[in-house]
């Protein structure tokens, strides 16, 4: 008897509790789209926030919401890549959007050799702090501070400081373009750019210095001085100078590398091309006047002809103009 009574009592308690639980689970059931769980399973669960949503569950919810509109649109999990997006599209019964793979690009070439140190900083070594204290150890108030906030922010071990240059370098293989380093950099030096075909064929301006030419050049040998040669040579309207700094629009750029070949400061850099670029003079690259030219390029011949001569000294001229 000593054994039977407790068994019966406990059994009854268990039964009653089970009934209550069952009733509650039916009554207060939260209706969840079964696709949410399925999508969450295919997502990498890195919770990096690179997609712009709070974690992978947030992204899954966004995908389900987007499916109501019939397309995944711009949604992209850069960590999972096209494979993961394909699976999500299958779950939702949609066609997978084609996302261009991107990669983080550090736009500063202010290595120890290029950018002389003018002061010594011995406070807390984080980029945020150095940035709030002033220009840092060099005279460039825009370039990399080299304390590695981006390295600390990367969850994929894809960005490392190069001790020789003092600049961070991105590992193309490991970078998933989540954008954590972009957010971590207090000077907005890192940008997500198209990874490019093959071995990552891409071209970018390796400088963010907005100072005028002379000041930028004094601070750093590799600074963009905003001379505008790249802008002139570009046939695709992809390069523009704004605030004394060139910027290459990656949607318009056709990777012809003309801008790189004329840059007097070697501030334009490329990656993944089979051969290094040949240095050329601006005058040689500008389109020659053609008699049968169409309406659009018709106005071009006269302008470049006038510019062709000073082009050789464009660097000096620009310097003088800036200083004047």
């Amino acid at each position: 008897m000593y054994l039977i009574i407790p068994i019966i009592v406990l059994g009854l308690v268990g039964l009653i509790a089970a009934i209550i639980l069952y009733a509650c689970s039916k009554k207060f059931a939260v209706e969840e789209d079964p696709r949410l769980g399925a999508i969450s399973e295919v997502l990498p669960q890195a919770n990096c926030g690179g997609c712009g949503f709070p974690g992978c569950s947030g992204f899954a919810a966004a995908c389900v919401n987007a499916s109501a509109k019939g397309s995944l649109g711009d949604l992209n999990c850069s960590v999972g890549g096209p494979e993961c997006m394909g699976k999500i599209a299958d779950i939702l019964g949609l066609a997978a959007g084609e996302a261009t793979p991107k990669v983080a690009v550090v736009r500063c070439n202010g290595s120890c050799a290029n950018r002389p140190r003018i002061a010594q900083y011995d406070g807390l070594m984080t980029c945020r702090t150095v940035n709030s204290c002033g220009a840092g150890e060099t005279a460039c108030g825009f370039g990399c501070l080299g304390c590695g906030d981006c390295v600390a922010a990367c969850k994929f071990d894809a960005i490392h400081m190069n001790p020789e240059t003092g600049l961070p370098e991105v590992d193309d293989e490991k970078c998933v373009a989540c954008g954590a380093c972009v957010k971590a950099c207090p000077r907005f030096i890192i940008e997500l750019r198209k990874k490019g075909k093959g071995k990552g064929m891409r071209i970018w301006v390796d400088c963010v210095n907005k100072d005028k030419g002379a000041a930028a050049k004094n601070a750093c040998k590799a600074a963009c001085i905003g001379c505008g040669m790249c802008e002139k040579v570009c046939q695709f309207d992809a390069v523009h100078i704004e605030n004394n700094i060139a910027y290459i629009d990656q949607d318009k750029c056709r990777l012809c590398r003309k801008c790189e070949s004329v840059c007097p400061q070697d501030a334009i850099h490329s990656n993944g091309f089979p051969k290094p670029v040949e240095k050329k003079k601006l005058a040689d690259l500008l389109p020659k006047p053609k008699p049968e030219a169409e309406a659009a390029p018709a106005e071009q011949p006269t302008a470049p002809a006038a510019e062709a001569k000073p082009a050789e000294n464009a660097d000096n001229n620009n310097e003088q103009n800036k200083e004047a």
Partner: protein
Amino acid sequence: MKTFTFRIGGVHPDENKITAEVATKVAALPKQAIIPLSQHIGAPAKAVVKKGDKVKAGTLIAEAGGFVSAPIFSSVSGTVAKVDMAVDASGYRKPAVFIDVEGDEWEESIDRSDKLERLSDHPELTPEEIVNRVRANGVVGMGGACFPTSIKLTPPPTAKAEWVIINGVECEPYITADYRLMMEHADEILEGVEILMKAVKVDKGFIGIEDNKPKAIELFNQKVKFHPNIKVVPLAKKYPQGGEKQLVDAVVRRQVPAPPAIPVNVGAVVQNVGTAFAVYEAVMKNKPLFERYVTVTGKKLANPGNFIVRMGTPMKQLIEACGGLPEGDNKILAGGPMMGKALPTVDVPVVKGTNSVTILTDDDAKRKEPNPCIRCAKCVSACPMGLEPFLLATLSAHKDWERDEKEDIVSCIECGSCQFTCPAHRPLLDNIRTGKQTVMGIIRARAAEAAAAKKAAEEKAAQAAK
């Protein structure tokens, strides 16, 4: 002599006031004055001169760029060379007006006589007129924060001023500019206090002076016999007594609540002695703010001294006037060793807020190697705002901004007492300052979002009404 002081925290750094008894000299005019357009808290001023314009000392070269802003005047006579970028005390390149100096001609409207003008002789000066003159002459707080004075003199309608408290504390080590000013222009300062009192419509003024300046206390005690409404309050030496909130607590025993409250919410309008002097000159002599007292000091400096310096004079020139940079590793600070800002170059010009150029050499210039926190809580007892610096620093290092905000990081006055007192030499203030800036950014973004949402809702309501 009974002395007062603030009740929470504080530290006692070495005074090192080596220039205290060095009489002030007038600094030589620079060859080229570099006058930054952002010398105050708030919107930068807008340049109204262009290359080739002739200016005199006192000519308006930039007008206020907004409500919280101040106009800027030429400090020299000559020709505008260019309006370009120049490195200022922030360490970054900011817009500035470059003036090539030719002679020293002043605007005729400035009264250059030494005659002491008494407020009682000028009944035409109404409070509004005083505030207008202060605003028009570009006077900002001379203690270092450079908040436009005219705004401080028009308190919000919710607050009522009861006293004017004048800050003659100069608690920062090394600096003696305010002390020299007090010793050399006591009458003008007291008239300035009377003017400030009239502007904010109060009849009680205090001048707080630390007891490490007994001569100043004695001098002012003699002079206030002619100013029955002003009282000299001797204060026990403690850093950061010159902080507004600490001074209010020390003098009138009232605690200013956490931001966004300001001293006027508890009835106090706090102004620096330098500001009182600048207000006197602006109101009585119609002289815009274009020169100030600057201490150039350092233990290894050959001839440290105090100077009356025109704004825009490069610090290099002042250092050379004192015997040039000493040998060894130097740290050049705009301000004192506690709150001063280290400069990357000596070409930085003197601006409205530059009270001192301090040069620390060798060991003084270097930080000590930080060690792990031993939880001694010295920083907690030193914090004059009653915060927990070790916690704020850790939270900021871990980017826990929400908790930072809960722990009241925005109350931090960045006085550096925590870092000074830390036996493990932790970079507490570095972390806290970063955290404070981030949290303030978050708060501003939130306010902007709320304002935008409110505006959108109002527009929607207006449309619905139509």
